[in-house]
């Protein structure tokens, strides 16, 4: 049989952007992995099923070390979808692909790649300018366990509570007119001026611009209160709202 090659349709190639978690390990890896395990233990399932990008820029490591790290992570169910900032000499076949330009540069950029950063201590040397956040969405019902609201474009307002096991990820600020029991991550595209407001704080995890705080790290006096949170340098600050 001869194949008909008369089909005039062209192949469609589509671009899509995804929200990924970026892990930026530091040396020695053993210590970093201990901290990662600690975070994973306290935020059950945080990495499960999520695209994770490994940022290895400025790390003086060779290919073997990187391979070992990827194996260690795979053993923790953290699967790496790409590597950012890796010198070509340490990448190779059988490794996740190299990724570039992980930040939205401007609105004309072809491939926008909104990325949440998850970092514990030092900020990255190159702090990108925050984009002005212009948009906002309002959700008029409770966010249930297992649901995620992801809105990299701007502010998220929830009229209702955010359940344990639910999460809100916003490029801008997060306003919750209800109890925050799940996770809230504001300024997820690198916006250090984003804030989190909630009527009653019972959160499992809070993050602003990649700096995070777990339930256990929060001052006990804040629990159950109406609270706002913001970033000062590398610390999440909080105060009660009356």
């Amino acid at each position, binding site marked *: 049989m001869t194949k008909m090659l008369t089909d005039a349709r062209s192949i469609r190639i589509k671009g899509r952007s995804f929200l990924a978690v970026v892990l930026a390990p530091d040396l020695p890896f053993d210590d970093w992995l201990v901290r990662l395990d600690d975070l994973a233990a306290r935020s059950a399932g945080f990495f499960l099923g999520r695209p994770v990008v490994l940022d290895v820029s400025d790390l003086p490591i060779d290919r073997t070390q990187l391979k070992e790290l990827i194996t260690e992570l795979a053993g923790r169910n953290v699967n790496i979808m790409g590597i950012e900032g890796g010198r070509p000499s340490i990448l190779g076949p059988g490794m996740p692909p190299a990724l570039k330009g992980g930040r939205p540069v401007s609105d004309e950029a072809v491939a926008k790649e909104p990325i949440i950063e998850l970092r514990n201590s030092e900020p990255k040397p190159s702090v990108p300018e925050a984009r002005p956040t212009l948009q906002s969405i309002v959700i008029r019902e409770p966010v*249930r*366990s*297992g649901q995620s609201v992801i809105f990299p474009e701007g502010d998220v307002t929830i009229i*209702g*509570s955010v*359940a344990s*096991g639910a999460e809100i990820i916003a490029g801008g600020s997060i306003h919750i007119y209800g109890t925050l*029991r799940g996770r809230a991550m504001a300024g997820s595209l690198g916006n250090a001026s984003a804030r989190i407001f909630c009527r009653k704080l019972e959160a499992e995890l809070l993050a602003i611009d990649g700096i995070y705080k777990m339930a256990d790290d929060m001052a006990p006096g804040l629990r159950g209160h109406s609270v706002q949170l913001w970033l000062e340098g590398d610390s999440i600050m909080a105060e009660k709202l009356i």
Partner: protein
Amino acid sequence: MGKVIVVTSGKGGVGKTTSTAALGAALAQRNERVVVVDFDVGLRNLDLVMGAERRVVYDLINVIQGEAKLTQALIRDKRLETLFLLPASQTRDKDNLTPEGVERVITELKRVFDWVICDSPAGIESGATLAMRHADMAVVVTNPEVSSVRDSDRIIGLLDSKTMKAERGERMEKHLLLTRYDANRAERGDMLKVEDVLEILSIPLIGIIPESMDVLRASNIGSPVTLADARSAPAMAYFEAARRLAGEVLPITIPGEKRGIFGKIFARRAA
């Protein structure tokens, strides 16, 4: 057209099957035509609680696969004329529960019965999502403890997204049924408070069923508690819940708080 209710919870063992049977028998005692449908393929239970296990010939899967007619599979209750059971299969694979088949069966049942009550399996897998798929309203069965409440919250999210009603942009009517409520443990603070559960789940409450030996006794003799012992505390709570499902507005009583509002007023006067 009848109303389709799914009895669901996420978490296992909280009292879905007990509640399906009790609510079904309570509604049938109002002379409404009721069918209770077991969606728990492979782990069927509803036939036992209804006392019909020895009368099962055909089941839901047989009907879906076209091996039996619906009328052949329906089992009429021995005590109540208007109460029927559509049993689940204990032996067949649950993959035989197809979306098209379920839709066909539910549509047929709705034509004949006033109430089609679907007993959902635990979990959030296909059995549970198929049981809720065609529901008009949901009874969310929850125990007053943290894990049950969180699972119910997850199920409410699915009810609002994975059902036909949700996909048509309509609102699924959801009712909270708090079961296995232990007044003594509530007193000691070992259980979540009713108001806390309500605050977390924010759906209307249709009843609080006390933890009670009467439920176990009823299921041991193969009878819904609302038939076995209609005067028992759990049965009375189920009867009230059934009336609320049918649209009546009744004040809710919390088991163990015998002094109603009057008791409180008098107590204060005496003090």
